């Protein structure tokens, strides 16, 4: 009954499955051949986008995990040339012992480099160092015309459309990335507790510039006076002198092991109105009020959730979504509104992440802009969630902010233009390299970046 050689694909949020032909090419040539034979397709990495960004219902999903070689590394400049399906985990296992680390990392190491570029990912250092696009020397992009090399100095228009372009400009096959030198594989971390949202924002605003990495874990469940209480962790790569004993003798090592996993999807979400307050409270009270110079491993600092494999299964069969938005400085009230609106809708959310962004980059679909970003994981299934998030969208757009497409599964399509004002520039670039509209995802159709009907697609104009 199921059409041959198709697979059901979901995002990290484990919902809204759609079927597509599954292809796992091994090289650029095979990808070019695939494009030749498809009517619509999208590249996919490790499936860490929360929504439907790497799904292509009725088309072809090009699984890029078959291209995962580390091709070349220049130990003097730190530039590494990798295939796009190589994961940050794989790259770190190679580079950390040599004294280099990815300059920007999201909250999981299980993303591919290609996916990281397509989402123009940011990390805890965005306020100082921007997103990943700023560290790319060049990349290889397969378009319907064949492979092209693009970079900030080589067809910059196509390069910037590709960074954050959610795979809609082509299939990224190789990336030359400038790594960052590190002296140790440890971080020296300061932890602070903030009693409410205002205190938290005040601490971040006044202290961030002193730290390379900074993030606040917000308890988005507590109401009233302690609304938005948070644990703030900030730090930098530790110097060798800061290490003790065995750590000092092997200062550069990266070999995290996933000891725990969620072996199956429980019949109901383990993250719910009963468990969340307990968890959030434990998290807050477990943290020290103020602690400085704690030495943490890279995986503990950057990737705490990676220790629990398949943790997304905890959200049960209905899955979950992440709402991540950014609003410019001065619009702090929208952060508060978002937390309160979700509380009012009785939609519990796990530990939220609040962080300050620095300057954005020239990529027209890139998410970060100077301001506050808030990310909340929310179990799906509540009948009041959709409307609550729609309200949040309106406030975010009204404040000049936007939601992050890599996390999105439900944004209001009519706000796309408001949130991403450079969208026409993006669509023009897409049209130039892909006039027939070959690159289509469920996300792109849902938010109106690409048309849904084949007839519309043929005559597509930006």
């Amino acid at each position: 009954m199921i059409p041959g050689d198709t697979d059901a694909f979901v995002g990290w949020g484990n919902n809204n499955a759609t079927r597509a032909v599954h292809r796992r090419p091994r090289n650029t040539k095979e990808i070019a051949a695939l494009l030749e034979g498809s009517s619509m397709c999208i590249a996919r990495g490790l499936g860490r986008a929360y929504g439907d960004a790497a799904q292509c219902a009725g088309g072809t999903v090009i699984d890029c995990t078959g291209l995962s070689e580390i091709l070349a590394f220049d130990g003097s400049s730190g530039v590494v040339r990798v295939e796009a399906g190589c994961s940050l985990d794989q790259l770190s296992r190679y580079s950390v012992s040599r004294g280099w680390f990815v300059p920007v990392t999201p909250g999981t190491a299980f993303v591919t480099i290609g996916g990281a570029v397509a989402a123009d990912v940011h990390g805890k250092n965005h306020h100082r160092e921007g997103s990943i696009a700023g560290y790319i020397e060049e990349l290889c992009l397969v378009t319907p015309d064949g492979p092209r090399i693009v970079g900030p100095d080589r067809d910059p228009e196509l390069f910037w459309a590709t960074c954050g372009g959610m795979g809609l400009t082509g299939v990224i096959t190789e990336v030359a990335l400038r790594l960052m030198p590190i002296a140790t594989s440890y971080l020296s971390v300061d932890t602070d507790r903030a009693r409410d949202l205002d205190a938290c924002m005040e601490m971040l605003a006044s202290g961030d510039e002193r730290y390379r990495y900074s993030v606040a874990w917000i308890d988005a469940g507590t109401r009233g006076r302690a609304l938005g209480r948070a644990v703030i962790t900030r730090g930098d790569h530790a110097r060798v002198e800061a290490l003790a004993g065995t750590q000092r003798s092997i200062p550069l090592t990266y070999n995290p092991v996933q000891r725990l996993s969620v072996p199956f999807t429980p019949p109901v979400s383990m993250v719910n109105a009963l468990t969340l307050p307990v968890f959030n409270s434990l998290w807050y009270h477990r943290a020290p009020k103020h602690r400085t110079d704690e030495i943490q491993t890279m995986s503990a600092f950057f990737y705490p959730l990676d220790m629990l494999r398949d943790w997304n299964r905890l959200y049960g069969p209905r899955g979950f979504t992440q709402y991540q938005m950014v609003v410019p400085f001065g619009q702090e009230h929208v952060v508060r509104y978002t937390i309160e609106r979700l509380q009012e809708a009785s939609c519990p959310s796990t530990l939220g992440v609040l962080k300050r962004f620095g300057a954005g980059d020239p990529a027209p679909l890139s998410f970060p802009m100077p301001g506050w970003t808030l990310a909340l994981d929310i179990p799906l299934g509540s009948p009041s969630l959709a409307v609550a998030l729609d309200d949040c969208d309106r406030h975010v757009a009204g404040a000049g902010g936007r939601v992050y497409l890599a996390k999105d599964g439900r944004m209001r399509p009519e706000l796309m233009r408001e949130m991403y004002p450079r969208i026409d520039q993006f669509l023009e670039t897409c049209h130039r390299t892909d006039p027939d509209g070959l690159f289509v995802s469920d996300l792109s159709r849902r938010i109106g970046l690409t048309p849904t009907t084949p007839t519309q697609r043929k005559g597509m104009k930006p």
Partner: protein
Amino acid sequence: MNDVTGMPQTAVVIGGGSDIALATLRLLAKRRLRAVVLLGRSAEALNEAAEQLRGAGVEEVTTEIFDVNDFSHASEVAEETVARLGTVDLVLVAAGFLGDASLEVIDPESVAHMIATNFTGPAAAMTAFSQRLLRQGFGRIVVLSSVAGVRVRRSNFVYGSAKAGLDGFAQGLDDALVKTGLSVMIVRPGFVHSKMTLGLKAAPMSTTPEAVAGAIVKGLESGASVVWAPSSLMWVFGILVHLPRRLWRLVPG
């Protein structure tokens, strides 16, 4: 495309004149719905529904005459509808009618017709659409069943048995569609005050098309496979199905 909260952007209604279908689409229009195809027998009813939907803010509404009993055309209609909408996120199966079922007035032809319109026709249309939707790789099918089919009552056993058949068909289809990206949601309303029941005496726990529509939208959001409207009927019928026949046949009207 459906979003993660289960809200569709495009929908096709089989039985486009249905009050419940119209009320459902009006609610969905407040969310993401932008294009609809209404299929049904009566041009007049379809046009009226289309007008209302345009008024509710649906950008693109098309109507097309289609009788579910016209099995031979079902696949063709499914093909054309998907081509028109690009992708079909939601198929709402609302065709059916409630005729008089007393033994004195029914005849072989009217029984066959009622069963065809309430069961075989909708089942055939669901088959056509699900096969077409398999190629697009996703889609939600919502079928209006009835508590009348959960336990068939003396007073409307023809309608009830047809709905029982449709309910069973929908359950089986949903099971067959596991892992295809498609799924079926069965809606079991109680007595609904609508065009279909005009002039009939209301049963206890009766409801309105708007309330059923609300339950359907909630079901889409929660990812339900069965929705009762009102929801308390689930418990009521949980007991009623076990009532001895001797007692059950005494249930009036």
